């Protein structure tokens, strides 16, 4: 590009943006003025000549056709017939819009108040048609005032129809999801308002909440949800449960089954959204609890499995028979009390995936952890007694394992970039012991979840020495050589 061409570009751009005028261009580049002037003039003349305006009649008619077309999308989406009525509705909208502009707010309010009189003819129309007439014809005011309506108000049906229109008009899947989430949120806001006003909440109200939430669950399970959408579903479902709990006293007697049903739906929604979030972002900025779905199948709690699977490799194992290297049979390994009532074996008792695992005993609890040779250390241990929680962390403090000495529950905190995820590895619930799903863990934390998994698998909680002690709690020599050692049981605080 020649220097002249560069100057010409510069002048054309400046002219088109209105920064310079022609004189300014010529003043800036006097050396090119003679050539610039005719070219810039030609450009300006062309721009002026092309500055044509559409005929007003065309502009008005085309606008109306366009707006009708926006409605036709709605028509297609809702499968509404017939078309002539549709056009009539569109025209009505414009007439009313014009009326609004001329007559202002007062006229619109009068029109809105007249609405109930039209109630029966409107009901005579197909549902979708009514929605259209409501949206297109009755216009913004009524829709806006209906948006605050609660179940039982006369505008409430308008509100529901308006919502259907919003869903039908949403063009993209993402937009539809967001509109549906808006509506699910609105349903719960309504229940909250009803409860605050002391109204009795009937089965229909609860069913509508469930009916708005269930499709979101199905949709979310179908895949394709963005984390933002899942986060909204989580928020909405949490709010639902909160409000349902709050409103429990005002649920009509005949609606108790509906309450149970909608509560279940809401919980499923919460689980589904959490699952999406977990997979979408394995390192969320906040601690998630629980973030890994727990499997309902309890692991052997008295005998850790000595897994022969391929994941356990023991190239250094002196024993050819299995993947797990155990302590020498026939006696406990040498132990060294490192902190109060927590006893850690001085030598590794097992090797899995090249990680040497040491046996830890605290009270009735015993488990295996990587030793100091692999950079792991006991943290926050009291000088005496058995703490409620035992914590081990790795060399760079990016992985923290926390185990309850009371019930053997285990949490794993995985740190990254100054943030921590909390993963429930092993949780005791009414139905038994639940553990994290191995495959989910590996998907989310492919490089770091093996060690916590081994630790979790090795957790043994001995049954206290009571007359009703069961034989299932008896540890086997191969896997848990240090379980329930006499030394440890001496410092145990009896648990309820």
């Amino acid at each position, binding site marked *: *590009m*020649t220097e*002249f*061409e560069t100057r*010409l*570009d510069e002048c*054309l*751009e400046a*002219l*088109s*943006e*209105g920064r310079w*005028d*022609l*004189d*300014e261009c010529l003043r800036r580049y006097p050396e090119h003025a*003679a*050539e*610039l*002037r*005719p*070219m*810039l*003039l*030609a*450009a*300006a*003349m*062309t*721009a*002026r*000549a*092309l*500055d*044509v*305006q*559409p*005929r007003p009649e*065309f*502009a008005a008619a*085309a*606008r109306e*056709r*366009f*707006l009708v*077309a*926006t*409605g036709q*999308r*709605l028509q297609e989406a809702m499968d509404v017939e017939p078309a002539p009525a549709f056009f009539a509705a569109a025209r009505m909208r414009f007439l009313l819009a014009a009326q609004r502009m001329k007559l202002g707010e007062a006229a619109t309010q009068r029109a809105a108040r007249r609405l109930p009189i039209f109630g029966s003819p409107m009901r005579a129309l197909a549902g979708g048609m009514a929605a259209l007439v409501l949206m297109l014809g009755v216009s913004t005011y009524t829709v806006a005032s209906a948006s605050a309506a609660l179940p039982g108000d006369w505008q409430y049906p308008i509100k529901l129809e308006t919502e259907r229109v*919003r869903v*039908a*008009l*949403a*063009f*993209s899947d993402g*937009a539809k999801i*967001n*509109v549906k989430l808006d509506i699910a949120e609105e349903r719960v806001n309504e229940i909250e308002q009803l409860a605050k006003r002391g109204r009795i909440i009937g089965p229909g109200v609860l069913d509508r909440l469930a009916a708005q939430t269930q499709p979101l669950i199905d949709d979310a399970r179908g895949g394709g949800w963005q984390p933002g959408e899942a986060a909204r579903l989580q928020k909405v479902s949490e709010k639902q449960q909160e409000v349902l709990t709050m409103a429990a006293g005002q649920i009509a007697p005949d609606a108790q089954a509906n309450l149970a049903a909608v509560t279940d739906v809401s919980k499923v929604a919460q689980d589904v959204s959490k699952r999406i979030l977990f997979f979408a972002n394995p390192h969320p900025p906040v601690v998630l609890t629980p973030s890994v779905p727990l499997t309902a199948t309890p692991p052997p709690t008295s005998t850790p499995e000595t897994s022969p699977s391929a994941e356990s490799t023991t190239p250094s194992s002196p024993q050819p028979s299995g993947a797990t290297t155990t302590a020498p049979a026939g006696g406990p390994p040498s132990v060294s009390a490192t902190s109060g009532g927590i006893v850690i074996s001085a030598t590794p008792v097992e090797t899995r995936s090249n990680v040497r695992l040491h046996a830890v005993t605290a009270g009735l609890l015993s488990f295996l952890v990587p030793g100091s040779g692999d950079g792991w250390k006991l943290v926050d241990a009291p000088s005496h007694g058995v703490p409620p929680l035992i914590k081990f962390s790795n060399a760079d403090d990016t992985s923290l394992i926390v185990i309850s000495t009371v019930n053997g529950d285990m949490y794993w905190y995985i740190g990254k970039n100054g943030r921590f995820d909390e993963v429930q590895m092993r949780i005791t619930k009414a139905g038994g012991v639940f553990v994290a799903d191995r495959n989910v863990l590996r998907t989310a934390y492919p490089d770091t979840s093996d060690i916590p998994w081994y630790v979790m698998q090795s957790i043994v909680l001995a049954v206290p020495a009571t007359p009703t002690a069961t034989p299932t709690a008896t540890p086997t020599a191969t896997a848990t050589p240090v379980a329930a050692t006499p030394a440890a049981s001496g410092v145990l605080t009896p648990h309820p």
Partner: protein
Amino acid sequence: MPRMASFKNEVAGVDVPSYQAVAPDVERTTVDRARTGDQQALADIYDWYMPRVYRYVVARVGNPAEAEDLTEEVFLKMLGAIGGFRWREVPFSSWIFRIAHNCIATHYRKTAQRGGATSELSEDMLDGRPDLATAVEERITMEEVRRASQMLPDAQREVIALRFAVGLSIADTAKALGKREGNIKALQHKAVAKLQKMLIPGAGGAGTVRER
């Protein structure tokens, strides 16, 4: 030449709509609402862009009747496509003129005709600005200018339409046409030089620069 703020004012001496139809943040929120099917937002977009799309189409096809049909078609296509519009790809203005560009390309393919029919443009499309003439332009009617622009090769005419009729920047023009900015600049040079030769033939000047 009076000092005026804008390109077109150089000749017309009349305020013309700014190249930016609306503030970017307003456009953004409106487009986002339109994507969710908000009818008012769609109407706003239509109102902002229809005159510009019409100008573009007229500059491309010349024939006002065709231009009206094509303008409507552009907005119907826009309606069908806006759900898939993504901010990260192109500015909304480039996006909508890309649709217009495609509509016209399809139109040309269908009719197997290139431009032509320029004579149908008439003075009544101008909105009667009184001080149209100046010392230089007196003898040139707007009709002649438009006829000259219709004689440009198609690629050049397209750039002129987006740059001068619509007012897109070089960058947005490039995005609308899916070309590089350098390419757009080169086409603009050639077009302006040709226009100057046709419109102000005695001036010599830059029209000959490229041949040096």
